[in-house]
């Protein structure tokens, strides 16, 4: 899973996993000096954001890996072993 989060740092983001729902929350604060300047153009948005994504299967919470890459958050999620489809052998009569 990837999410575009330019200007958001590691410390601003919280990831929560509950069964198969991943919640991504965070905030983006404007830099202090920007408040004092004289605005010519203001297109970026600031504040808090939250998003919950329902995944197609349950996730192994111990195997989640998340990293930031140039403002893009990448989250790697692995399916729970107990949730994987199992092959059933048919016994010979």
């Amino acid at each position: 899973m990837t999410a575009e989060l330019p200007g958001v740092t590691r410390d601003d983001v919280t990831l929560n996993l509950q069964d198969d729902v991943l919640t991504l929350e965070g905030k983006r604060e404007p830099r202090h000096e920007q408040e004092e300047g004289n605005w010519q153009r203001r297109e970026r948005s600031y504040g808090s954001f939250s998003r919950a994504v329902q995944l197609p299967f349950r996730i192994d919470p111990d195997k989640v890996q998340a990293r930031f890459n140039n403002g893009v958050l990448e989250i790697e999620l692995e399916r729970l072993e107990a949730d994987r489809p199992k092959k059933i052998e048919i016994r010979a009569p």
Partner: protein
Amino acid sequence: MAQQVRTTDQPTPARMETRERTPDRPVFVPPTDIYETRDNIVVVAEMPGVAPDGLDITLERRVLTIRGRNAGPSNEHTGYQRVYNEYADGDYERVFTLSENIDRDRIEATLKDGVLHLVLPKSETAKPRKIELKAS
């Protein structure tokens, strides 16, 4: 009676571009903040996915051009198949015409977390100046 509108056989392209680019992928206009302090003009552009070596900034006279090449997802994701898609990977391009004279030797650009901070110092002649009254 309504006037009949005839269309020509040749379809006109929806987007006319002065040049064609390779590879063919979308080009976005990065959302940008511009603010002005007493000494500087600061341009803050959002370009998620752009690495510092994929960035190209030029200032020609008063025309500031920002181009960013999206490096795309990291290579560790090979073997994955996309199941849901909300945003496209693309490049960024934006051109601004600045209203002030810029001291081009002192321009500072930093790219951090996918956000470009460009500090353009105003040249001395463009700065506001206090005018002292001469005693008559």
